[in-house]
């Protein structure tokens, strides 16, 4: 048996493999085996802080307006002596977080031991290193040579109008609300070409982009790295050449932050997100729109509880400082391995926005489902998940909850402009209450699409006209039956509301899979072709959302956690029979039909 021979060579091979194992994380970096650590420090005793010097006036006013203290403990700077100590016992300092009184650094194992023994250090936890493999890449962009992306079809123009109109954009415009006086921070993968795009000509001419910072490269320029931010920005403040607004907040000021690398999903980006949220707070952001989410490469679905990830905790802190954080729910609804919202959309105080199909008014396949891992309602609201957005060289139809989020962020800006004294969480609640299904909810649509008319009615204290019941509950021996009331059925029949003929056109083929948040891409230009002369242009009325013929119902337990929900297409009065054996005492059966939510508590 040649053991000595084996042993001699095997030790070298093993050593080589071990070395590569340790070195792999640091591939591409000059230094040797180091890991990334999150060093939490003990205190901020004795640090000096002048909020007037640190915060932008807009940030100070935001706090004042919401009756928040001028600053709190989390705003104080990290003690310089502590940073020096961490620097001395680490390879490099990556980021210093005031909010968490922590330093992210790269250190060797020996340095880690020394770091942990420092009196100033409360706890050291390892930050996972960046995975070597890129996340699932998108299919190659299909060339659009020969297609004029500035030429829009009637259906595309209709979609552009619809994406704001379904939120009540017209009502906001009539009320003179366009987000003026608000600061909206956008965190994204890059805003390549946004400064040159005709959709933002007015925005840049009016110097509405007040600050920008690339947290990946640490430079102020963000107009590179990817076009996703351009598309997202257009759903807030973009315009078509004819002046049609693609979003609701062209009057707001913008802070643009690049926090993400295209085609990568690395933990470093969470630190960048955290750095950006502190930057946004300092620069007076009222609203943060984050069309980003972190999912399976870092977390498990059961960790989507709003407490696990660093970004979720940072988003919660932002909410406490009076910032409304609006985040896309995620594009993993059709991913059997994930399905739920990503983080930070999982955070309790983050307004998570799902995607609605403009054609049907229902949840889009890819839009992530709730609830959160701790059974809270997610997504909170929804908006179109298929939109017309500015894209390089023109405009494109594009799918993703990334674009529903800025639509709602724009809605929030208009609402906040109208009620400037609201706190962020009061606004959060008002947006939910204004939504089309409220008080009904489910884990696909949340409370539905926010409605400007409902919100403005709330603020004007206008009492809503009492509406007649639309369904009856009848408890039978073994079933709870739900019937549509005869007079309502008659009304629906006479209205003859077709389900599809008032839609925006037949080109709404939502792709079976949509890329992860931040990586969505425009549809090929074929969808933007102008209709031929022989094809009659689809001149459509806006679809009534939710559609008149839809009936939504759910069974919630005593805590409001849903056990089952459905959307039915109504074709007869006897609409529903629920076996009573499936209902427990304390459950509530809710039915939403024709704008009215009916509840039937189970005793």
């Amino acid at each position: 048996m040649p053991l000595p021979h084996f042993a001699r060579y095997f030790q070298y091979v093993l050593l080589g493999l071990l070395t590569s194992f340790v070195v792999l994380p640091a591939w591409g970096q000059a230094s040797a085996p180091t890991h990334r650590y999150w060093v939490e420090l003990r205190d901020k005793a004795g640090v000096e802080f002048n909020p007037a010097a640190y915060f932008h006036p807009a940030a100070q006013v935001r706090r004042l307006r919401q009756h928040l203290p001028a600053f709190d403990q989390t705003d104080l700077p990290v003690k310089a002596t502590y940073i020096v100590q961490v620097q001395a016992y680490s390879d490099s300092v990556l980021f210093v977080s005031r909010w968490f009184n922590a330093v992210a650094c790269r250190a060797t194992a020996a340095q880690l031991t020394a770091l942990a023994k420092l009196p100033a250090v409360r706890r050291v936890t390892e930050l996972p290193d960046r995975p070597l493999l890129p996340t699932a890449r998108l299919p190659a962009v299909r060339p659009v040579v020969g297609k004029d992306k500035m030429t829009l079809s009637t259906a595309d123009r209709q979609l552009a109008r619809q994406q704001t109109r379904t939120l009540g954009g017209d009502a906001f415009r009539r009320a003179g609300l366009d987000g003026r006086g608000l600061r909206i921070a956008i965190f994204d993968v890059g805003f390549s070409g946004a400064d040159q795009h005709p959709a933002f000509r007015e925005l840049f001419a009016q110097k509405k982009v007040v600050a920008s910072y690339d947290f990946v490269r640490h430079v102020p320029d963000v107009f590179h790295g990817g076009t996703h931010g351009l598309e997202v920005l257009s759903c807030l403040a973009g315009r078509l050449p004819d002046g049609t607004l693609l979003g609701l907040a062209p009057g707001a000021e913008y802070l643009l932050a690049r926090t993400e690398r295209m085609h990568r999903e690395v933990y470093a980006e969470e630190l960048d997100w955290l750095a950006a949220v502190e930057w946004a707070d300092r620069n007076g952001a009222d609203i943060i729109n984050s069309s980003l989410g972190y999912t399976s490469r870092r977390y498990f679905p059961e960790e989507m509880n709003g407490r696990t990830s660093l970004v979720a905790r940072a988003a919660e802190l932002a909410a406490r400082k009076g910032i409304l954080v609006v985040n896309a729910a995620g594009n993993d609804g059709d991913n059997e391995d994930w399905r739920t919202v990503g983080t930070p959309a999982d955070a309790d105080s983050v307004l998570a926005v799902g995607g609605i199909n403009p054609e049907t008014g229902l949840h889009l396949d890819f839009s992530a489902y709730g609830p959160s891992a701790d059974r809270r309602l997610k997504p909170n609201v929804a908006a179109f998940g298929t939109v017309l957005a500015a894209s390089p060289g023109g405009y494109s139809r594009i799918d993703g909850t990334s674009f529903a989020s800025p639509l709602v962020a724009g809605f929030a800006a208009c609402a906040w402009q109208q009620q400037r004294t609201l706190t962020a969480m009061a606004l959060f609640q008002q947006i939910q209450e204004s939504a089309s299904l409220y008080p009904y909810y489910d884990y696909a649509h949340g409370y539905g699409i926010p409605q400007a008319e409902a919100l403005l009615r709330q603020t004007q204290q206008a009492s809503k006209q009492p509406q007649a019941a639309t369904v009856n509950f009848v408890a039978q021996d073994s079933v709870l039956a739900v019937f549509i009331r005869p007079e309502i059925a008659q009304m629906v029949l006479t209205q003859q509301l077709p389900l599809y003929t008032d839609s925006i056109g037949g080109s709404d083929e939502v792709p079976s899979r949509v890329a992860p948040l931040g990586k969505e891409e425009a549809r090929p230009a074929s969808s933007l072709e102008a209709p031929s002369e022989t094809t009659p242009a689809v001149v459509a009325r806006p679809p009534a959302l939710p559609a008149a013929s839809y009936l939504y119902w759910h069974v919630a337990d005593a805590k409001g956690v849903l056990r089952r929900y459905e959307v039915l297409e109504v074709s007869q009065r006897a609409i529903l029979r629920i076996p009573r054996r499936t209902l427990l005492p304390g459950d509530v059966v809710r039915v939403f039909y024709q704008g009215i939510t009916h509840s039937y508590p189970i005793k």
Partner: protein
Amino acid sequence: MKRILKPAAALGIVTGLLCPISTYAQRVLLHSDVATDTIYGSFGPNRKFFNHIYLGYLPVVGKSGVGSEIRYGSSGEFMLGLRNKFRLSEPLSIGLDLRFVRLSYLLSQTDHKRLPTPVVHYRESLALSQWQLEGFVRLNAGARGNVVGRYLDLTGWGGWVMSTAHRVEDRPSAGPRRVQTNERGLPYLRRWPYGVGARVGSGRYAAVARYRLSDTFTSSYQDAYPELPRWTVGLEIGWL
């Protein structure tokens, strides 16, 4: 109408339509049973159990004995296997592979050749087809989600050689252009190989080094035939 429902939801629809107790002749556009839709799986790259198919090619490396020189680069083992991994904790897993391995040694046709005969041919090879079982301990680096991540595997393997073949090709100057001869069931090759190995990987890719502890030749032929190289080093790609 475009498809707006997930497969699970579609199942719900079918159930709903077939079961008039719960719904009553209505078209279900969206259905969710929250309890079943939010079950967290136990199968996945970083779940309790994971398995996947993988392919590998590991060229033979290391020194051969005098008289049994091989052609490097052409000699190697191709493997196709099923890897089963059981997670014990975030950094520690164990696993068991079952694989088919085809190990080929292309013999150099030198003047001092002894294996299996001194006769020099145009081309000559020994091939062993085997089934192998491999146990491994996996050490993972760093916290991660439901992904394979970076890892180091320490492995021990054993196998059964189900077929052996000695292939010879000659190019005679007269007669047929090419003459191929196959000899199977070679009595001088061991049937039960075993060894150890190590594997370092990231995601679907892994660099593998394996060392054969068992001898190639049965004891009665060991004096006649110098041992063949024991090392194979190569790459594996997992079908995750």
